[in-house]
């Protein structure tokens, strides 16, 4: 469980999260408009904002207490940034090694394994700046996984990508979510990403948590409330409960028959699944 109450004053913006409690499992999406404070909140949780105050616990471990905080590098978090943030002075392999060398398990085999799963094995010798947007995010995700985090944070990892890469990387993130046991905090302002990935949603507005729904589509909640919780965004498949339910299913339960071009489908073709699960 990630729980606490954080405040942060930064360049005219004030974050006052209010009490929150996020399950440390599955994908939790931070949803809200641009400028609502999603990124700031996630960075505060990660320990990247030195001005953060309040209290924060991760699975019982105290990360923030008043102005005292555990250094970001000691929180065992993997972070995928909006613009990948790959080191320009290192090639892809060295970027991965940077994470791998500082992780608890430093095996070469694991690095090769993750690179293969992320589909970047043939790019290892390239400079980071020569990669396409989609490839950069693949490396960034691989790097985050290689540091063997206890919590994975993703700050709008698709926002800088073109449509086709978005679909590829979203599928990849679904695989990661299904495959690894690590809880994921995922920032988005795109309803389709939210729908495909998130089991829990935290709604953020003007620097505070407006509400959280957990778990989504559990059947315990009237359908109206779920659709309202999406700020009445025009979801085409709201009218189709079967499809909505389908969207919540982990990738592994899909039959692999849906066309992969459908951006609503969480399903992976069966061969790609087995490739990832390798």
């Amino acid at each position: 469980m990630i729980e606490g109450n954080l405040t942060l004053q930064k360049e005219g913006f004030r974050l006052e999260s209010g009490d929150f409690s996020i399950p440390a499992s599955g994908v939790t999406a931070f949803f809200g408009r641009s400028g609502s404070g999603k990124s700031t909140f996630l960075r505060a949780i990660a320990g990247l904002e030195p001005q953060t105050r309040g209290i924060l616990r991760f699975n019982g471990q105290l990360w923030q207490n008043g102005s005292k905080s555990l250094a970001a590098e000691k929180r065992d978090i993997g972070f995928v940034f909006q613009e990948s943030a790959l080191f320009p002075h290192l090639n892809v392999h060295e970027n991965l090694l940077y994470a791998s060398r500082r992780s608890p398990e430093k095996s070469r085999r694991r690095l090769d394994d993750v690179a293969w799963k992320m589909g970047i094995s043939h790019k290892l010798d390239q400079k980071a700046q020569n990669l396409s947007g989609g490839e950069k995010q693949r490396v960034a995700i691989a790097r985050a996984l290689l540091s063997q985090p206890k919590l994975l944070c993703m700050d709008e990892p698709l926002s800088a990508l073109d449509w086709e890469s978005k679909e590829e990387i979203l599928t990849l993130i679904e695989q990661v979510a299904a495959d690894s046991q690590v809880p994921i905090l995922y920032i988005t302002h795109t309803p389709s990403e939210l729908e495909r990935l998130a089991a829990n949603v935290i709604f953020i507005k003007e620097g505070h948590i407006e509400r959280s729904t957990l778990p989504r589509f559990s059947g315990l909640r009237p359908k109206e409330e779920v659709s309202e919780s999406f700020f009445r965004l025009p979801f085409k498949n709201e009218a189709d409960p079967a499809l909505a339910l389908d969207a919540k299913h982990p990738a592994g339960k899909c039959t692999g028959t849906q066309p992969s071009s459908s951006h609503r489908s969480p399903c992976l073709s069966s061969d790609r699944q087995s490739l990832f699960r390798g």
Partner: protein
Amino acid sequence: MIEIFGVNIGLGPIWLTLKVAFVTTSILLFLGTPLAWAVARMRSRFKIFIEAVVALPLVLPPTVLGFYLLIVLNPDGLVTGALRLFGFEGQLTFSFTGLVIGSVFYSLPFTVQPLMHAFEAVPQKFLDAAAMMRASALDRFFTVVVPLSRQGFFVAGTLTFAHTVGEFGVVLMIGGNIPEKTRLVSIDIFNHVETLAYSQAHLLSGVMLLFSLAVLLMVYSFNFRLGLKFRQ
């Protein structure tokens, strides 16, 4: 003493100048790097004050700086007295040590300013990414900041060296004009002109001119090439 174009030139001042410049550059890179990093990361108003103090030698007459250094470092002063407690013998003024101390103050902005600008240009996202991969602050500095600031280190090192070679006022005030001990090339030129030995003055001045031009060409061509590389 060697003979170039029929003119006899003493090598002592040239050798001493290079030695002072080398030692000064090493000390300044060692001390200037943490200072530049601290100032680059500083967010308080105090930053403006430190920046102004670091830039002082750029506008202050060298004689003023030299005068204050003479006062502070004089053999009966506090600094020398304190050093004597630790077994220091001799004096800080009119010696090689004095020349280096004076040069360190005089060339400080030429080390700190390029480094500071290079550090400020390192995007925060790379430091955040490194922290998220368990790199400590020192680790981040050496594995992310230093490699991404290579250009800054190169420019700082070359400009500091060249500027130290070219100083006159401060070293004359604190080092004097003692042959083989504190007489640097710039002071040697002054002596030659005073004694109307124009051919020696011509030769040494020509060497200094070519050296300074070569250093600046090197710095600017490096910046130019780097600009092209980033534009691609």
